[in-house]
C-alpha cells in the first residue's frame, strides 16, 4: 500500500495503443499498468508479461482433491462404516473414481478461481483506484509511475506524442484497499 504519483494517458484506439505501449516501454519510464474496456489480444505479449503459474497451482489443487476423495472414501468404507454392497470388496476403487474425479475438478476449479482473484486483486469489497471513468467504456488507459523528480511537462508531452487523446497527472493509492471508495479523495487533493 503506497501512495504514488502517476502520469496517465488515454487512447481511443487499439491500433494506437500498441505502438504507444512499445514506445513507453522503450522510453525508460516505469509502466504501472494498462487498463482496457475489453481483453485485448496480444497485449500481454506487448507488455512483456510473463506466463502465469496459475496452472501449476491448479495442478496442486487437483492433486489435493484426488487424494482427499480417495483418502476420505477409503477411510469411510473400509474402517469407519464398512457396508457390504452387493458382495463387492470394501475398497472398491472403480466405484470411487467418479467421486474422485468430481472432487479433483471441484478443488482445482474453486482453488484456481480464488487464486485468480488473489493474483488480480479482485474480490467483493476490494477497491482499486480508477484512473479514468471511461476505462471500462471506450478508452484504453496507460498509467506510468513517476515521482517528484520527474519533469511532468516532459512526460505529458511524450505521452501526447504517442497519440494520447487525454492526459493527466494523478496522485493515488497504487495497490488495492479494503473498504470504501472515498479513501482516495484526500490524496487527489494533495
Amino acid at each position, binding site marked *: 500500500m503506497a501512495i504514488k504519483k502517476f502520469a496517465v494517458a488515454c487512447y481511443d484506439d487499439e491500433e494506437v495503443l500498441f505502438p504507444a505501449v512499445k514506445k513507453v516501454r522503450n522510453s525508460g519510464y516505469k509502466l504501472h499498468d494498462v487498463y482496457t474496456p475489453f481483453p485485448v489480444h496480444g497485449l500481454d505479449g506487448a507488455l512483456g508479461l510473463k*506466463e502465469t503459474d496459475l*496452472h501449476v497451482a491448479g*495442478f496442486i489443487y487437483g492433486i489435493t482433491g484426488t487424494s482427499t476423495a480417495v483418502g476420505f472414501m477409503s477411510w469411510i468404507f473400509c474402517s469407519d462404516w464398512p457396508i457390504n454392497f*452387493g458382495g*463387492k470388496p470394501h475398497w472398491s476403487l*472403480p*466405484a470411487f*473414481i*467418479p467421486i474422485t474425479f468430481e472432487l479433483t475438478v471441484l478443488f482445482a476449479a474453486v482453488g484456481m478461481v480464488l487464486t485468480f482473484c488473489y493474483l488480480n486483486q479482485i474480490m467483493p469489497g476490494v477497491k482499486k483506484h480508477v484512473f479514468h471513468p471511461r476505462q471500462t467504456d471506450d478508452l484504453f488507459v496507460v498509467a506510468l509511475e513517476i515521482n517528484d523528480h520527474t519533469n511532468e511537462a516532459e512526460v505529458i508531452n511524450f505521452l501526447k506524442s504517442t497519440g494520447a487523446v487525454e492526459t493527466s497527472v494523478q496522485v493515488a493509492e497504487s495497490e488495492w484497499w479494503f473498504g470504501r471508495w472515498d479513501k482516495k479523495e484526500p490524496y487527489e487533493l494533495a
Partner: protein
Amino acid sequence: MTERFEIPARLKNTSLALIAVGILVLILGGVTMLGGHDHHDKTRFWLVLLQNSVFFLLICVASVFIQAAASLAQGGWIVAYKRVPEAIGANVWVFGLIAGAILIFIATGFSVDGHNPIYHWVHPEGDKILEGKKAFLNKEMFIGFTVVTIALWSFFGRKFRALSLAQENAPKNSTKIYWTMLKWSAAFLLVYALTQMSTAPWLWIMSIDAHWYSTMFSWYTFASAFVSGMSVILLFVVFLKNNGNLELVTKEHVHDLGKFMFAFSVFWTYVWFAQYMLIWYSNIPEETTYFKMRQHGPYSLIWYSVFIINFIMPILILMARPSKRNYFTVTFMALVIIFGHWLDFFIMTMPGPLGKNWHLGWYEMGIFLGFAGLLIFTVSKTLTKSSLVPGNHPLLKEAMLHQS
C-alpha cells in the same frame, strides 16, 4: 508460395524394408500357421491381419475426420500442415481394400471344422443369443456394411484432397471451393457418425465376442483411432519439419497437435472407464465374462499396460506446456500412443477366439511393421504430388499467424 517434397532415399528404403518385413512375415506365417493342423494357429494368422488392417484403416479415416471437423469449425490452425491429413486420407482406399478383403474373407471363407472361430455368429444355429441377433449379425449385412463403409470413406478421403488441390488452382481470393468443402465435410460427419461411431466397430471388432455387447464400444474405438490418428499426423509433420519442409509450421502448431494427443488420451480413458465401470457395477455374468478374461485372466499384463501407456504416460508427460512444445517429447509420446492403442486393439480382438493361446511375437510385430511401412510409403508418395503449402487457401494467413 509453393514447397515441394521429395522422398529422401532413407525414408523410401526404410518404408520398403518395413513392407518387405511385413510380406516376409506374412508368407512365413502362412506357411507355418495355415499349413499346420493347430486351429489356434490358423485363427491367430487371420486375427492378427484383422486387428492390424482395421487399426490402420481407422487411423487413416481419423485424418479424414479431422479435416472435416476443422473445415466445419473453420479452424485455421490445421491449414499450415493440411497436406499431411489430406495425404493420409487420400490413401484410405489402400487400407480399405486390404481390410475389406480380409474382413470379408474371414466372414465368408474362413472355417475350421465347420465353424468360424473368429466370427462365430456366421453359424447361429442352436445358439439362442446369436439367433436373436441374426437380423443384424449375418453375412449379407456384414458384407454390405463393410463395402459401403469402406467405399464411402475412400471416396471422401480422395474428395477432400481433390477439393483442396482445386482450391490451389482456383482464381485468387476465390472462396467458392472453401464453401463446397464445408458442405462435403458436413456430409462426411454424418457418414462417419453412422459408420465409425456405430456400425463399423460393432461388425468388425465387437462381433468377435458376439454374445457380449457394449453401447460404448464404438465411441471407445473412435477415441483409440482418433488419438493414434493425431499421433500419426504429428509424426509426419515432425518428419517433414526435420527434413526442412513445412516452413510455415511452428511450435504453435506442434503444440496444438500435442494438445489433441493429450486431450484425446484423457477422452479415451473416460470412455474406457465408463464402459468398464458400468459393467463392473451391474455385475451381470454375461457382461463380466468379457472383462474377466481381459483383466484377471491371461491378458491381465496387457490390460494394465494399456492403461498405463494410454493414460498415465500421456497425462504425466504431456500435461505441461513445455513438453507439448518440445519436438522430442511429442514424437516419443506419439510413438508410445500408437503402440498403446495398437495393444488396445490387440486386447479387443484376441481374447475371444484365442483365449489363453495368445502370442505377442514375431508374427504380430512383423505384420504391424509391414502396415506401418505401407502407411509411410503410400503417404509420402502422395505428399510428393503437390505443394506442401495449401496455396490460395482463405485461412492460410491465419494459419501462419497462429498462436496456441
